[in-house]
């Protein structure tokens, strides 16, 4: 099983990413799976009943389709076919900020250590690296920067905290 970085730790990945599944028949039983959004939307009842099914979004998939599933799903993955396609960053923020999704949000596809800091800041807490990439080296990418200006998953904008540190009321 490919290694997974989750919340700063390297683990064996329990989930199988099912990229091509078009019908329920394509989904293996007996192993936790992550299925495409289209299949989840079509077979939501049956898949949710399994209790071990996550959903993955392609860059163009609308995260709004999962608005009512954020309490049910334990794993949502967002695919980056190329690391230069940044749509998944906005999808992540919509899931986290707008819908309050608190489960595992994993980045899959063409991601490397140089993307992990940004990915982590927009709300990804798990990273499935491509074959052959050293997860230990990649881990250090998460902390390339110790802080930043913008609002992110882990912090409010710096201008709010700076004033709070001075003790002035907001």
């Amino acid at each position, binding site marked *: 099983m490919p290694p997974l970085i989750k919340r700063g730790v390297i683990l064996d990945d329990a989930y199988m990413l099912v990229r091509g599944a078009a019908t329920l028949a394509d989904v293996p039983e007996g192993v936790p799976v992550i299925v495409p959004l289209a299949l989840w939307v079509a077979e939501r009842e049956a898949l949710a009943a399994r209790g071990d099914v996550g959903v993955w979004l392609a860059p163009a998939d609308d995260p709004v389709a999962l608005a009512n599933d954020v309490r049910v799903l334990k794993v949502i993955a967002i695919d980056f076919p190329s690391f230069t396609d940044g749509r998944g960053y906005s999808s992540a923020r919509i899931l986290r900020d707008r819908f309050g999704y608190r489960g595992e949000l994993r980045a899959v596809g063409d991601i490397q250590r140089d993307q992990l800091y940004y990915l982590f800041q927009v709300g990804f807490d798990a990273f499935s690296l491509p074959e052959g990439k050293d997860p230990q080296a990649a881990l250090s990418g998460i902390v390339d920067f110790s802080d930043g200006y913008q609002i992110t998953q882990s912090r*409010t904008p710096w201008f709010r905290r700076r004033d709070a540190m001075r003790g002035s009321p907001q």
Partner: protein
Amino acid sequence: MYRYDHFDQRVIDERVAQFRDQTRRYLAGELSDDDFRPLRLQNGLYIQKHAPMLRISIPYGQLSTKQLRTLAHIGRTYDRGYGHFTTRQNIQFNWPHVEQVPDILADLARVEMHAIQTSGNCIRNISADHFAGVAGDETVDARPYSELVRQWATLHPEFAYLPRKFKIALSGALHDRAAILVHDIGLQIVIGEAGEVGFRVAVGGGLGRTPMIGHVIREFLPRNEILNYLDAILRVYNRFGRRDNKYKARIKILVKERTPDVFRRDVEAEWEHLRGGPATVPAEEFERLAGFFVPPAYEHLPGDDPAFRAALADNRAFANWAQRNLHPHKVPGYMIVTLSLKKTGIPPGDVTSDQMDAVAHLADRYSFGELRVSHEQNLIFTDVKQSELLSLWQQLKGLGLATPNIGLLTNIICCPGGDFCSLANAKSIPIAEAIQRRFDDLDYLHDIGELDLNISGCMNACGHHHVGHIGVLGVDKNGSEWYQVSIGGNQGEHAALGKVIGPSFAADEMPDVVSRLIETYVDIRHEEERFVDTVRRVGIDPFKERVYAPAH
């Protein structure tokens, strides 16, 4: 000007460390060319024709003399003793070595500078009115707001991998000197009915292959919502901007394809989710930022200095320079001085390291130790006493920085072109020089009056040719270099795109073509009418006929 605190400094220092490691991995073969490219571009590093090119950010064009001395040092130590100021108020160096770039960035970080997001598909350097804070027509000083936007844009986690580059400009004056309507986002700072500060937001302007004037999507945005609103615009663009074709990937294409109305609805719907949230900017933050831009210790002076008046009357060369290169200042007794980087024979925007050191010395002595870079690729001293103008002019003349051509035909905006840039279809610098040589008669030049001539070596339009009164675009025809000419473009609040007059020309025809355009104008102009006004009145036909008429 803005000064870093420990927080800003740490961000920049960590960026240097990150890029040093990325460069090490690249040189060790651990990062492929393809994987390194977007990373180096977001640090301003291109691989060019002859050598790498490093573009350094000068936020909203403001520089301290300490920073300028560091740029001189970089030119001397890592390059060939000069730098090139760009149309985004940045500076670029054309000959650094890849392995030395981390050291250059470390030197820059020591003076609160960096190369973050000066290239690549991300939010680029924030540009603003180069007269902000001192112009007489100013409503609100754009610099504190520009700094807020700069901080928001710096290493924004959500928007590092956009469909294409993204440029934002701000102006707080009546006259738009920052070309905000040809930016992806143009922010005009305005005062609301109750005296509150806000923004008029234009989106989807841009030059390049498909030039467009920006559409105003919100007439008044309260200032505390600015970052929420920018997040909303960028999120809509990041999600829905085209990624299948890089020539259709700018936000202007999305705005056009959706229509400005639909685009506005999308942005406003996204904004509803963000509005009033944690990124809403408290009044204290605006006050804090404004505190960095308080006016310097101006003396109380009479509005008109007698010695200055006398020098104008006595010295024609000084008077010529004063007429073209000075602008009124909001404080009596002071003037804004533009140092022309458009001397004939020197590539527009180029400055040597020795000149930079000398300019730093003069800015310390005459203008409170600060200066500006304009998008027209000149340098500006914003705060010079009238009584010291003559002395300053004499010294600038000695440095070759007093060409009296601001606003005139020879103040050419020009990209580096085919001499340096691997994207270019054609050379641009030799064309600029040939035209400058043709118009070397100062009296004629002043008689022609205000004229913006802009040259781009390819349709990426770094030389802003679409908004030149005369625009020149380098094109490739069967492997040779040709030049397409347009007239009637304009920058500023009356932004307009020029119209192409006809088939393109060979390089050696260009001075004649410009001469014929100018002769046509001189023949048919009305009193007080600028070239661009004449084109607007009569259309392009009279110009076209003259230019394409058979010789003799």
